[in-house]
C-alpha cells in the first residue's frame, strides 16, 4: 500500500528544470523566484509569479507618439517583419497588441549617456517585477551617436529584435552581428537572429511552461542552483616554441544542487576545445583546451569567456597567457634587396633555428629568378636588426643563392623555398628582390583613382656606383606628361609624371618610356595604370 503513495509524492516533488548557459540574469532570477515559492509550497504566489514569466503568447504595446508621422508606418513594418522572423524561428511565438502588455516599445528623441562614455544609449531596457508593468520595456533612441544622427531602419530593427530576445530570457551576447549582440554605436547593419539564439529561446519557453504547469498542479520543486568553481582561474602556457600545441586542462566543479550547463567562447581561433557541456551537481569536469601557437610569436594574451547557468557567475573571463619563441628566422645581412653586378652575384641568406625546434632543411629551391641555391649547416654569431636583435650565437643553415649573368636588367623578385622535416612548417620561404642595371622604382606605376584634377607622381631611377645619362622620357597616354631631373646622388634621377585631369572616364593602361645612354638598357619601360572616375 505504501509504495504507490511514495511514488505519487516523488512525482510531485522534483528538481526544477535546469537552465542552459547564456540566460539573462533577469529571467534566471524570475525563474528562481517561482521555484522558491514552489519549494515553500506557496502555490498561489508561485502561480501568480509564473503567470508573469515570458510565454509564447506575447501581449505587446507599441507607443510611437514620439516618432515622426512619416516614419510610423515604416517602423511598424519593421516590427511586424521581426515578429514574423522570431515567430518562424521559435515555433508558436505570437505577438498580440494589448493594453496590458508584457512587452512595451517606446521611442525618445535622445537617451542618457552610457556610463563612462560620451555616447548616448541607443536604447534602454527596463525590467519590471510581476504585476508592476510590462516585463520588458524597450525605449529606442530616435537619435544616436555623438554628434547625434537619426536612427536608421537597421538600428530600429536591431533594438526591437534585441528586446524580444531579452524578453524570451536570452542574455546579451558578446558575438557581434547576432540579435543579442547589440551596441550603442551608430552605423550598424541588420543583425539576424542566430540559430543558437532561436533554439535557446525555444528551450527557455519550454522551461517557463513547465514552471507554470508545476504551479498550477501544485508540484513542489527544489530551485536549481548550480554553483561553478573554476581551477585554475588563469591559464599560463609559460614560454614555448612557435608552432607548439599547448594543452591546458580546466577543471569545472559544480558545488550547487543541480546540473551546471556551460558554454565556452574563446576570442581567438587558435583554441580548439569542446565548447559546451554539463557538470552534474557535486561533480566536476575537465575541459581540455588546445592552443595552436603557429601564427604567433612574442607575449600573447588571449581570453576565453565561460558562460554558465550559475546565477552567481553567469559569465567569467579566463585569461590565457603564453610567451612564444619564434621557431626559425631568416636573416639576410644588408636587407632583402640585392644589387646584382654584371657577371652575377652570390647572396648569403641564413636560417637561424631556435634550440629544440626540431626543424632540419631537407631541400632548397629558388623560384622566380634564374638562380641556383646551395646550403650547408651553419653556426656563427649574427645580428638580426630587423627584429631588433643584436649579434648573438645562432645555429642553422647558410644558403648561398647564385644569381647568374642571365638576369635581365631591372628589378625582379625571387623566393627561397626550403622544405623541412617539421610537420608544422613543412615549407618555409624567404623573399628576395634583385636589382640589376638601371632600375625604375617603382617598376610599375599605379596611379589609383583619378578625377578631374591634375595629379603628379614620381619614379626614381637608380644604378648605384655607376654613372649613366637619361636622354628623354615620354608617355604614350595623352593626358600624361613626363620630365626628368638629376638627383644629388650620382646615378640617380627623378622622373615626374603629371596627369592633367582631362582623361576620359574608364581604366587606362599605358607605358612610360625612359631613354638612356646605356647601350645595354637603351629603353626602360614602366607600365602605368589606373582608373579615371
Amino acid at each position: 500500500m505504501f509504495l504507490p503513495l511514495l511514488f505519487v509524492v516523488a512525482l510531485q516533488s522534483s528538481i526544477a528544470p535546469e537552465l542552459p548557459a547564456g540566460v539573462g540574469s533577469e529571467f534566471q532570477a524570475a525563474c528562481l523566484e517561482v521555484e522558491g515559492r514552489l519549494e515553500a509550497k506557496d502555490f498561489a504566489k508561485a502561480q501568480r509569479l509564473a503567470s508573469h514569466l515570458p510565454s509564447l503568447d506575447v501581449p505587446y504595446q507599441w507607443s510611437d507618439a514620439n516618432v515622426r508621422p512619416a516614419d510610423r508606418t515604416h517602423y511598424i513594418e519593421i516590427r511586424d517583419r521581426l515578429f514574423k522572423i522570431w515567430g518562424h524561428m521559435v515555433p508558436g511565438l505570437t505577438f498580440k497588441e494589448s493594453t496590458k502588455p508584457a512587452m512595451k516599445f517606446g521611442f525618445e528623441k535622445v537617451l542618457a549617456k552610457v556610463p563612462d562614455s560620451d555616447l548616448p544609449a541607443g536604447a534602454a531596457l527596463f525590467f519590471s517585477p510581476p504585476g508592476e508593468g510590462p516585463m520588458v520595456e524597450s525605449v529606442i533612441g530616435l537619435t544616436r551617436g555623438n554628434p547625434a544622427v537619426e536612427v536608421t531602419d537597421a538600428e530600429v530593427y536591431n533594438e526591437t529584435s534585441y528586446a524580444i530576445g531579452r524578453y524570451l530570457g536570452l542574455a546579451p551576447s558578446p558575438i557581434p552581428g547576432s540579435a543579442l549582440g547589440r551596441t550603442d554605436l551608430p552605423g550598424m547593419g541588420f543583425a539576424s537572429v542566430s540559430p543558437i539564439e532561436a533554439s535557446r529561446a525555444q528551450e527557455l519557453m519550454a522551461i517557463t511552461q513547465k514552471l507554470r504547469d508545476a504551479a498550477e498542479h501544485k508540484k513542489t520543486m527544489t530551485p536549481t542552483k548550480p554553483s561553478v568553481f573554476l581551477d585554475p582561474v588563469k591559464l599560463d602556457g609559460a614560454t614555448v616554441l612557435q608552432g607548439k600545441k599547448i594543452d591546458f586542462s580546466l577543471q569545472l566543479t559544480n558545488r550547487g544542487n543541480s546540473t551546471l550547463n556551460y558554454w565556452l567562447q574563446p576570442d581567438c581561433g587558435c583554441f580548439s576545445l569542446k565548447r559546451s557541456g554539463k557538470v552534474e551537481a557535486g561533480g566536476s569536469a575537465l575541459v581540455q583546451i588546445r592552443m595552436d601557437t603557429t601564427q604567433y610569436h612574442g607575449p600573447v594574451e588571449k581570453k576565453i569567456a565561460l558562460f554558465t547557468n550559475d546565477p552567481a557567475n553567469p559569465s567569467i573571463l579566463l585569461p590565457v597567457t603564453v610567451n612564444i619563441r619564434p621557431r626559425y628566422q631568416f636573416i639576410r645581412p644588408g636587407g632583402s634587396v640585392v644589387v646584382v653586378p654584371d657577371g652575377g652575384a652570390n647572396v648569403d641568406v641564413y636560417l637561424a633555428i631556435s634550440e629544440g625546434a626540431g626543424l632540419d632543411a631537407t631541400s632548397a629551391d629558388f623560384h622566380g629568378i634564374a638562380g641556383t641555391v646551395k646550403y650547408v649547416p651553419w653556426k656563427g654569431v649574427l645580428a638580426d636588426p630587423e627584429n631588433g636583435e643584436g649579434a648573438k650565437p645562432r645555429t642553422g643553415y647558410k644558403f648561398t643563392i647564385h644569381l647568374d649573368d642571365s638576369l635581365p636588367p631591372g628589378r625582379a623578385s625571387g623566393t627561397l623555398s626550403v622544405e623541412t622535416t617539421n610537420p608544422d612548417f613543412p615549407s618555409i620561404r624567404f623573399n628576395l628582390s634583385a636589382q640589376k642595371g638601371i632600375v625604375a622604382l617603382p617598376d610599375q606605376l599605379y596611379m589609383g583613382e583619378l578625377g578631374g584634377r591634375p595629379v603628379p607622381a614620381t619614379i626614381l631611377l637608380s644604378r648605384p656606383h655607376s654613372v649613366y645619362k637619361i636622354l628623354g622620357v615620354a608617355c604614350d597616354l595623352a593626358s600624361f606628361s613626363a620630365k626628368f631631373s638629376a638627383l644629388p646622388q650620382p646615378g640617380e634621377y627623378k622622373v615626374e609624371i603629371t596627369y592633367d585631369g582631362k582623361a576620359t572616364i574608364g581604366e587606362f593602361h599605358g607605358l612610360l618610356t625612359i631613354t638612356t645612354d646605356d647601350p645595354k638598357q637603351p629603353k626602360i619601360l614602366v607600365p602605368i595604370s589606373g582608373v579615371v572616375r
Partner: protein
Amino acid sequence: MKIAPLVFACAGLACAAWTGAPRDDSNWTFLISGDSDGNLSPCGCTSPMTGGLRRRATAVRKLSVGDRTIVLDNGDNVAGTARQDELKAESVAEILGRDCNAIAFKASEAKLGIGEMQTLQRLSKGNYVSSNLREGATNPLMRTIEAGDFLIGSVAASESPFNRLAGVEPESSARAIEQLVSDAENVGRSAVLLYSGNRDQAESVARSHPTIKIIVYRSPNDPPKAVETVGTTTLVTPGEHGKYLLRLTMGQTEVKSYTPISLGPEFEDQADASRLYRTYLDRVDREDLLSKLPKSSSPKFVGSTKCGSCHAPDFKVWKLSAHSHALKTLENDGHGRDPDCVSCHVTGLEKKGGFFSHAKTPLLAMVGCESCHGAGATHSAAPRKVKMPKVGESHCIKCHTPSNSPNFEFLTYWNKIRHGKRG
C-alpha cells in the same frame, strides 16, 4: 514586496535621465585602426569573421564627430615583400587616404622599398608619416603631422628597415621619439605616437616621455576592454589583424570615453572602399600572380574523376561534400585568382603537376582526393603495386588552420566526408 534586484537591472544602460547632453567642444575623438598584417578582408581567426578595410571605412564614417575627429592608422598593414604585398599596400594607402589624418609608415611598409614609398604617399594623399626618416631629396613622407591640438609622429621599434631608404641614414627610434616630443612642445601641441613597439616598450616610452598624450602600440592580442594609462599618457592598441577600430574621446586632461569596436558583420561594407578593394582583386587577377607562385616538383596529378573509377562510394561522398566545389565557392566570393586563398581551394597549387588555372586544369579546380592523399598518377597506373598513403588530421589542419577555419574540430568535420575503410 520582495523583488530580486536583478529584476530591476537595466541592461547596463543609464536609467536616470532621458535627456542627451550637448556636445563638449573641448573634446577630441580619435578613431584608430592599423596592424592589419595584410588582412584587407575580414579575418577568419574569429567566428563570425571580423575586421577588414571595407567595414572599417563604414565605422569611421559613422563614428566621426565632425571636425573634432582625428583618424589614425598604426601602419604595418602588409606582411611580406612579394608583388601581392605591393598591391595590398597600394590599396590600403588609397582606402586609408580617404579618411585618415595620419597613417604610420612602419617597418613592413618600409621593406617594400623607396619606389613603393613614393607610390603609397601619393595614393594616401600625403598622409603617411615616419619620424624615423630624415628629410632628403627622395623622402616624400612627413616626419610629423599636425591634427587638431595634436602633433602625430610614427616611430618603428627598430630603425633597421629604414636603412638607406631615402638615401640617408634613419633617425634612431629613441632619438625620433625625443624629437617628436620636442617638436610638439615647440608648436604647443600634445604629442601622439604611432609606435610599433609592444605594450611593455610603450609603457617604457610613456615613463621616459610623460608629456606624450597617446601612444598607439602593436599587440598580437585584442585591445583591452578598459583604457590603460601610464601617468598622463594613454596607451591603446588596435590589436591584431585589423579586427578592431578604437574610438577614444579625449577631454582637456583625461580620457572621456574609450570603446574598442569589433568590426563584425553588423558593419556594412562601405561603397568606396568596396570599389577600391574590387580594383585590388582585379589587379591581382590581371597580373596573374597565381601562376607565378613557386611550385615544387611532384608526381603527376590525375584528378578525382579518375579516382572515382575504382573508388565509387568514396567518390560519391566527395562529390556531395563542400570540397568538390571549393574553388567555385571562392570564385563566387571574388577571390578565385587570389593567391592568399586559392591554395586551400584547389588540388596541388604549389606542385608543378598541380592546379594551374580553371581553364587549363579543370580536373584539379577543387579540393580533390589528391589534395589530401597526394598526387595519384603512379597509383592510378599500377594500383596494386603503388599504394596511396593513409592520411589523417595532420593533413586537414594544413588548410583548416585556426585562422581559416576557427571552428574546425577533426571528428565533426571528418563525419562530413567520412569515406574509405575507416568510414
